[in-house]
Structure formats: structure tokens, C-alpha cells
């Protein structure tokens, strides 16, 4: 389906996340509160692959990727697990790096397109200055050469060099989005993390921006994690898809498999409840409310809303089980573990 990487054969792993736990911990007036936004997530991303992360708001998607890029600040705290990147032939545990090492990785190897990234540009700096502020010192190039590179890179996202002299408010939403994509990719990073890069955009501009993001990603051969709740976007852009619910990954597999043949009841609900043009069969919403992560349900976190829930689901959290090659599901009903559970 896709062009093999430079070292064809076994795909090269760029990111490995093992049993990651990240909690928001607060203590005000002696009251301790712990919100388990990411609770035991394991995943990996190969070179030149787009990994999609789906799930509704407050399921921990954004916390997960903040932890992956180590953009964490209190009260968010990494409680357990590891995030290992493989850059330039070296494994690096991002949470064990020193500040300067982290800085040497950021932008050159790892860049981050933030949520609401239309509004991240400094409103009192011209776009050119923003490029210099963000990326110049990471590029390791003299200024004229860097600016030349920026200009040719802007052409790649179909923006004219004149956009460099504009202030952010002079650009439309789609253009600002392109500027942030250009910013995140100008140093040709090995890994891009994009958090809801197109949520605030119109459908027409969205399709265009996504196409461009994919184009740039293919051209610089980087890997990407794309977070969005929109299954339609995943179907069109991502190679593999992980579905999160209440801080845990509930299903993961090739995007086609997950969307065509969802195994977890939550995923199948997400996919079947989507209205489609040309389809007028009644669709149902899920009963109940998204769980409160400060006091998540016991056992499988989906059981209060699950149509298939049985007694075990109330007590024990289900493990991730392979149902097909590369397709993992955590559900007692649809994927009961037969043999000893694989730890990964």
C-alpha cells in the first residue's frame, strides 16, 4: 500500500510508547485530586507512517501527545511508562533527556502542531519573524540561507513569499494553518505531532490542508501522529488508527480494518453512528455521559455505556488482545483472551 522506507524490509520504529501513565494531580486546601487522563497506553509508530488517534473530547488524546512530546507542566505529571524516540540511529527516552538535549531534538527531529494552531502565531510579529523566533536556531543555518529555505518551503504549502511580511490577523484561517504547518515542517523533522490541525477550518479548506500535510509528510519522509475526533479525516489521511476512551487505548489497527471491521463496541458505535450523505437510516447517540476521569468506572471504563456489557466488565479491565495481525482490541466480549495475554 505504501512505498517502503529507505531501509526496506522490516519497518523502522520511530516512536515506542510503553505503558504510559500521566495524571493531573492537584492538592488544594488539603483535598487531593487525581485525574487519570492517560492510564496505561502502549503504542508504536513506524517511519513514514501516519498514526491517527481518535476519541471524544476529554478522553486524554491531548494529554497523551503532550506527554509524548514532553510538553508537560504541573499539575500534569508522568507517573509511569516510557516514551522512546529513535532519532538519527539513537534511542532516546524523551523524559530522561536534559533540557539542552531536549532543545536539540525539538524542531529538528520532533515538531508539534498545536491544537487551535490558527491562534498560536504571535499577533505582534510578522510571519517572517515568527519563523526566525521558532525555527532559526534549530535549523543551524546562517540567516540568509534560512530565510531562503523558509521561502521555498512556503511554496510547498502553496503560500506566496508575500505571506512572510504579513501579520497573522491579515491572513485567513486556512493560510494561518498553512503557516503553522510550514513552521512545524521547515526543519524537516523526523516526527510531527499534529493535534486537531483542522478542527476550526471549513470543510473545503480542511480537505486542502490535510492533503498538504500529507504531501509534505511524504516528501520529507517523516512520521506523524494525527489527533482528531473526526473519523472521516482518519479514513482519508492516516495509515493506522488508535481509538482512545477514558484515558486508555481500546482499539488499534490499520485504519481500514478499524473502520471497516470495528471490534470494540465503542469504535463500532463511533463508526456506525456517523451520518453519511446518501444514508437516511436512523442513527443513535450513545446513552450516558463521558466518564469523569477523576473517578473512572471500575473494570472496563466503557461498561456503563456499553450495550454488550457483562459481569466481568464491571470488575476487571480488559487487556489488549490481538484479533488479527496488527489489530488489537481491549474488550472482554468481542475479544476474549484465549491464551496468556501478550504484555505489549
Amino acid at each position, binding site marked *: 500500500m505504501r512505498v517502503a522506507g529507505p531501509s526496506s524490509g522490516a519497518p523502522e520504529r520511530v516512536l515506542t510508547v510503553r505503558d504510559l501513565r500521566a495524571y493531573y494531580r492537584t492538592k488544594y486546601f488539603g483535598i487531593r485530586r487525581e485525574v487519570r487522563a492517560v492510564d496505561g497506553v502502549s503504542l508504536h509508530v513506524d517511519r513514514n507512517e501516519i498514526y491517527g488517534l481518535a476519541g471524544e473530547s476529554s478522553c486524554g488524546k491531548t494529554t497523551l501527545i503532550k506527554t509524548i512530546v514532553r510538553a508537560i507542566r504541573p499539575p500534569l505529571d508522568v507517573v509511569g511508562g516510557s516514551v522512546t524516540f529513535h532519532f538519527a540511529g539513537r534511542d532516546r527516552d524523551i523524559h530522561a533527556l536534559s533540557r539542552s538535549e531536549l532543545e536539540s531534538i525539538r524542531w529538528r527531529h520532533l515538531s508539534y502542531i498545536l491544537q487551535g494552531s490558527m491562534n498560536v502565531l504571535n499577533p505582534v510579529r510578522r510571519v517572517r519573524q515568527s519563523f526566525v523566533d521558532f525555527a532559526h536556531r534549530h535549523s543551524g543555518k546562517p540567516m540568509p540561507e534560512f530565510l531562503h529555505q523558509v521561502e521555498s518551503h512556503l511554496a510547498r504549502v502553496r503560500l506566496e513569499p508575500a505571506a512572510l511580511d504579513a501579520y497573522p490577523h491579515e491572513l485567513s484561517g486556512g493560510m494561518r494553518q498553512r503557516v503553522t504547518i510550514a513552521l512545524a515542517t521547515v526543519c524537516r523533522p523526523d516526527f510531527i505531532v499534529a493535534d486537531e490541525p483542522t478542527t476550526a477550518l471549513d470543510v473545503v*479548506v480542511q480537505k486542502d490542508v490535510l492533503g498538504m500535510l500529507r504531501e509534505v509528510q511524504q516528501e520529507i519522509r517523516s512520521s506523524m501522529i494525527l489527533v482528531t475526533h473526526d473519523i472521516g479525516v482518519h479514513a482519508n489521511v492516516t495509515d493506522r488508527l488508535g481509538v482512545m476512551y477514558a484515558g486508555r487505548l481500546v482499539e488499534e489497527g490499520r485504519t481500514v480494518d478499524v473502520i471497516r471491521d470495528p471490534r470494540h463496541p465503542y469504535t463500532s458505535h463511533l463508526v456506525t453512528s456517523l451520518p453519511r450523505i446518501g444514508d437516511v437510516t436512523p442513527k443513535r447517540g450513545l446513552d450516558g455521559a463521558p466518564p469523569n476521569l477523576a473517578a473512572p468506572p471500575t473494570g472496563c471504563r466503557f461498561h456503563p455505556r456499553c450495550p454488550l456489557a457483562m459481569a466481568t466488565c464491571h470488575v476487571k479491565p480488559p487487556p489488549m488482545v490481538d484479533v488479527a495481525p496488527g489489530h488489537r482490541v481491549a474488550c472482554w466480549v468481542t475479544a476474549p483472551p484465549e491464551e496468556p495475554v501478550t504484555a505489549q
Partner: protein
Amino acid sequence: MSAARSSPLLEVDHVGMTYAVGGLFRRRGVRAVDDVSLRLEAGSPEVLAIIGESGSGKTTLARMILNLATPTAGTIRFRGSDVTAIRSNSERMAFMRQVQPIFQNPFEAFNPLKPIDHYLFVSARRFAGARGRTDFESKADKALHQVGLSLAEVKGRYPHELSGGQLQRIAIARALVSSPSLIVADEPVSMVDASLRMSIVNLFKALRDELGVSIVYITHDLATAYYISNRVLIMQRGNAVESGDARAVLDNPQHPYSILLRSAVLSPDDAGRPRSPADSAIPPLKHSISNAE
């Protein structure tokens, strides 16, 4: 009232809205809405979807229908009387009783410092003629039951204690307290979680079918518009470019802009289809750059 019965519920007649921008010397007009007409018949409740990208004038049109903005051209008649001619407070209250809004972001629609039932009680007092605590509560409870909630679940709670889906249901319940005949919903599901979105959309369907409320549903999501609406109106830069039966228009759009919108819908069924990076039939963004503001 008997004369009004025969006239259409809502008649938007060649309405335009021009905003003035710029300073004293460089004043120019921006046409947010340009010559838009539409009609909702009384007695046959329906969902009319207004579809368009941001900046196409959808929200301005909604604000004019709600009488929150005065059109600079044309007239809007509700049950035969011009809404811009409303002067007295009693007339305004009578109009608001009939026409109720639902806004995009339920987290912003409610004051975080007020318990949520406050809104229901105020609406009951001002629009439904309720007097006294028990009357407030029974009216609020009735409206909440219509959206699948009850007063017991909601009473005394603040917006931050409720999910977006619940808040949006309460916003709908609040609009229903006065038993309106028209609801104007501006992007009511775009901020609601995916798993709850369809229940809100189904609720609109139930309001139309069971309570006989007409709904103006403003959205940029073609799929939900196809799912619930009877008719659609597609807007581009203030103009209505295509309108008609929802299924017919969205199955087979005619205007180039409608075709573009239709082709930009990303469907989950596209999974596994071979894709090349440049498969989009979208023209380079340059066009939209020059048109944006």
C-alpha cells in the same frame, strides 16, 4: 391572530446586510448577506438547513431572523408581521416567545457562576407566564423531559458539572419552555462530543415530528444536514447559491460551489481507498486568500 394563521410562519424576503468597515475616510461596506429569500410555511413543520463555510453569512442571517440584527435591505416577516417594526416591549416578548435561539457552544452560552436551572426558571417566568416556585419547576421539568432529562438531575448544578451534550440539551429545553414555533439553531452540534452528537440531532428530529417546531439548522456539516433536514439552502459569500429538497440537492448538487462542498466531505467510507497526496480537486488556496476579508 386568525389573519396571521394563513400567512407563512417565516418569510425572508430579499434580505441583505451590509456591515460598514474601515475608518471615517476609508469607509466601505462588506456585504455579509446579499439578497437572500426563504420561506417556512405555518402548519407544516420542517427542518431547513443553511449550509456554508465561515464568512458565508449564515450566522448573520440567523441573527436577522432572531431580530438581533436589523437587515439593511429587504424585510423579514414572522407570521405576516415585519420583525423590524417591533417597537414595544410586549411585542418583542411575544416575538421571542415564538422564536428561540440555540447557540453553538453550550459552554459559552451559560454563565458559569449561575446554576443552570436559573435559565429555565427565568424563561418560564418571562415567556411562559409561570408564577411561583412550583409553577417554575413544573414548566422547567416538562421542558427537560422533552429533551430526555429531568429537573432532579439538573437542579442546582452549575455548567461545569455537566457535559457538553447535557448542556446543549438544557439549552434546547430552555428554548422549549416558551413552546416556540420556530427554533434557530446556530451550529448546535459542532461542539458536542461525537458519541452524543447524534442524540442531539435526533432530538431536533423529534421536536419537528412530535412538537411541530420548525427549525432553522445552521451548519457546515453536510452529513447531519442530509440526515435531518427537509430542505437546504447553500450559501456562499452572502448569496444563496442553491436551495431545494435536502436529499435531492445533496445527492446531486448543481452549483459549482455546492459540488465543491459536496466533494470536500471526508467520509469514513474512504478508508482503504487508494489515495495520492494531490488527489484533491480543490483549486490552490490563492482564490480563497483573496476572498477572505
